[in-house]
């Protein structure tokens, strides 16, 4: 099962510049572990040590924030589009 994951620009250093990667898994937790295998370093930018999503990063399945679904246990189906959206603050200095 291939699921598309949109990568925000701050994390593209870890995906060889790709703005979208593909991964697999029955839920968000599996999917993150799968893309971590392909692009090491991604997981620690998204997750706390205990595997929970960091408080300033949101993950959306299609247009729904997984915090309002089943968090990292949110189940995935073929064709779902995942977006990783970190908080950004810039106006820049």
């Amino acid at each position, binding site marked *: 099962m291939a699921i598309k994951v949109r990568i925000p620009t*701050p994390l593209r250093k870890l995906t060889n510049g790709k703005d979208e990667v593909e991964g697999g898994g029955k839920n968000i937790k599996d999917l993150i572990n799968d893309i971590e295998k392909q692009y090491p370093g991604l997981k620690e930018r998204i997750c706390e040590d205990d595997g929970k999503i960091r*408080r300033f990063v949101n993950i959306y399945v299609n247009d729904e924030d997984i*915090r309002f679904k089943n968090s990292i246990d949110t189940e995935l189906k073929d064709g779902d589009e995942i*977006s990783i959206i970190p908080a*950004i603050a810039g*106006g820049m200095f």
Partner: protein
Amino acid sequence: MNFTEEQIERYSRHIILPEVGGKGQAKLLDAKVFVLGAGGLGSPALYYLAAAGIGTIGIADADCVDLSNLQRQIIHSTEKIGMPKVESAKKSIEGLNPDVKVIVYNERLGIDNIRKIIRDYDVILDGSDNFPTRYLMNDACFFEKKTLVSGSMFRFDGQVTIFKPHEGKPCYRCLYPEPPPKGLVPSCQEAGVLGALAGVIGVIQAVEAIKQILKIGDELAGHLLIFDALAMTFRKVKVRRDTQCALCGDNPTVKDLVMYEQACEIQAAKCST
């Protein structure tokens, strides 16, 4: 409201729109909008708010114009380097539209002054460049029951939404419960931003602020608009009010303003006086 002939001509492209009309234009001329930051986002937002004839515009910024600002902060100009940004912005706005009364706050907003300053305004635009100020402004708007049009950008990405917890819509803490801790976001030296991206995001903020005043169309409250300049895509995702939110949730723990620590040093530009 009685328009002068000059005003009828100046705002004619608004007035002929059925969604705006003379009544709408009068609302804009009566409106008070506060813009935090006369920087990348504030510049285009201020220009269009002024052009639209927003009657009173408040601007807060404690910095002075620096050469490195001019790649995106279009309300300033080369001869204004060293001038306080609020003064520079005021001059540009007055040059564009003398109908606008500009009130400047050449100071940093903090716990002591922010609520009092925003109290007089109808709509608030956040174009600030750091997390502590964003959380402070969000919380202040919650306590003062003000609608907050939030825009932010980083490199090639931009985000826009509206926070309106006083109308049952989410706040910034519903969207992102906590700011990133020190050391986890790229340092300021690593950061950069595509100048024209500021135009896209700041202008969308102005559009949303104007729609709030006119009460027309669909609002962004409850949605986050995400712009990816490299992929050239706009996407909208849902933002829900979080019943666990520390500020506007059912059992709030944030009951007063808090100022978080800066994730990195802000280097203010030197002022010429």
